[in-house]
């Protein structure tokens, strides 16, 4: 089967920084790939290379089987892009922006106009359609930019942080739009800072850091890599934490983490609700006052932190990318 997106060994260096350090990606047609990574990981660089905006220093890539480096014009006919920063013309109205994009996709005047109105309606921008986008809020501009990526109904769409700057309603709406697209067979590569978003939308998640892929798989398989569920509780008085640790540790499958400042106790467990019930019984016997207690499955946040902890640590230090 032909893959919608295929990249091999992508390398991109800037002076002193290796933005991409050998990235391989495969996205089967009709699926969604979520690219996750901390700031500066190389997400935007990947999107720019795949959408023909940037030439890599090494490696190769194909989109719908067409080589990105040798036939960029043909690739552009098959893709839609919404970059990290909204690329709309601030003096044109929303309608004029979309109409212009339609014409530059060579859809013809009639289809461009119809498509512009259609998308403005789909993205709740009808009322603002005939106002210059300078007067739009950040979220409206973002939605218009996304609409721009859909004008020609391309088979492959790249969205770089599509919901950054959207309010919760805007975000769920965006998810709906994306899910509709995917149901229609569109292949999607999206980058995001929201792990929940990758969890909801992506079939496959790729975690990158410092220009390298550090983990890859479905949301579930990534969660499994980080481990099972955890018992978490917060006590009213930090003084009892030592006693709590003593009685609960035998229930766990790993060492507990205790934080006096936050009065919290976190411990990997297995056995689900029964462990929770047993823990509550033991604490009840001792009359420990609890503020909060629960059993938590690992979220992608845990995955993210576990995998890129080094990267967050690195923050604030001078970038050492060039030394590698």
């Amino acid at each position, binding site marked *: 089967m032909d893959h919608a997106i295929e990249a091999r060994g992508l390398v991109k260096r800037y002076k002193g920084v290796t933005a991409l350090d050998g990235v391989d990606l495969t996205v089967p047609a009709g699926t969604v790939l979520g690219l996750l990574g901390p700031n500066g990981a190389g997400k935007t660089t990947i999107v720019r290379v795949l959408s*023909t905006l940037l030439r890599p220093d090494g490696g190769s890539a194909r989109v719908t089987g067409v080589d990105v480096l040798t036939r960029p014009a043909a690739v*552009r*006919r098959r893709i839609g892009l919404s*970059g990290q920063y909204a*690329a*709309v013309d601030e003096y*044109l109205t929303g309608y004029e922006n979309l109409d212009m994009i339609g014409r*530059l*996709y060579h859809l013809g005047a009639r289809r461009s106009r119809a498509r512009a109105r259609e998308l403005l309606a789909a993205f709740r921008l009808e009322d603002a359609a005939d106002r210059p986008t300078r007067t739009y809020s950040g979220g409206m501009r973002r939605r218009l930019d996304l609409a*721009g990526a859909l004008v020609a109904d391309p088979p492959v769409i790249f969205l770089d942080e599509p919901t950054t700057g959207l309010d919760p309603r805007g975000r769920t709406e965006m998810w709906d739009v994306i899910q509709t697209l995917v149901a229609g067979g569109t292949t999607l590569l999206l980058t995001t800072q929201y792990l929940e978003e990758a969890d909801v939308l992506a079939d496959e998640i790729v975690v990158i850091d410092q220009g390298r892929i550090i983990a890859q798989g479905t949301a579930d398989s990534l969660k499994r890599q980080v481990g099972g569920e955890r018992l978490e509780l917060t006590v009213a008085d930090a003084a009892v934490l030592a006693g709590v640790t003593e009685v609960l540790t035998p229930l766990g499958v790993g060492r507990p983490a205790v934080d006096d400042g936050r009065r919290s106790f976190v411990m990997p467990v297995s056995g689900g609700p029964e462990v929770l019930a047993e823990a509550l019984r033991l604490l009840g016997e001792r009359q420990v006052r609890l503020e909060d207690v629960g059993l938590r499955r690992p979220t992608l946040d845990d995955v993210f932190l576990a995998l890129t902890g080094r990267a967050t640590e690195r923050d604030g230090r001078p970038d050492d990318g060039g030394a590698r």
Partner: protein
Amino acid sequence: MRVPDVLADAAVVAKRNIIKIKRVPDLLVFTTLSPIMFVLLFSYVFGGAIDREGGGAAYREFLIAGIFAQTVIFGATVTGAALAEDLKKGILDRFRSLPMAPSAVLTGRTFSDVVNNVIVLVVMGLTGLVVGWRIRSSWLDALAGVGLLLVFAYAISWIMAWIGMLVPSPEVVNNASFVVIFPLTFVANTFVPLDTLPGPLQTFAEWNPVSSVTQAARELFGNIPPGTPAPTAWPLQHPEVYTLLWSAVILLVFVPLANAQYRVSTSR
């Protein structure tokens, strides 16, 4: 990509820029008010001071073609500044991800600046008529004069397009181009007859294409007073040919240069 497609794409980009003339107050002022101001200031301030035979009226008529030339050439800086502005904003990323002809971004910009210059010339022409300027040749000749001004300004706008792609900000583009355009438009026959210039400046002015385009427009408008001695320098004896030659050479050099710089500046 076929030529008609490139032109169609350029027309779409040009339309976008023209819409902006209406919506950006700065541009509107630049396009309409400053030409009026130029005509009035130059006619009355200089017109009164540098009085040639027959009072201020004759000099005003002499000046008009020079003001036209200077203004449309200055108008070309809009090309560079607007492109530098686009480069700063994300819109070029949008264009570059679309299956349009890459050259349409610059071509569209230079097209819309021709439209801009047409508006400027109409406004200045009307103002000129109010202060006493008259076309003393045929309408056809006058149109040819306007055409020549537009062609020359079009060529200059490709130089500005190149500068706009080269230089990091619209402000720098403006300053950089003013440094070049001021001497070019003043050391010429735009505002004073060449025989008033000292030796070396006079030679420079004679070969300056700004002089030839001004001379051509002046002749074609019928604004050379009878009895004016014929020019001695070749460029001014054949101002149309000399202007077209310069325009062609500028286009041949700067269209490829600007497009190459566009590719470099947008892909980093």
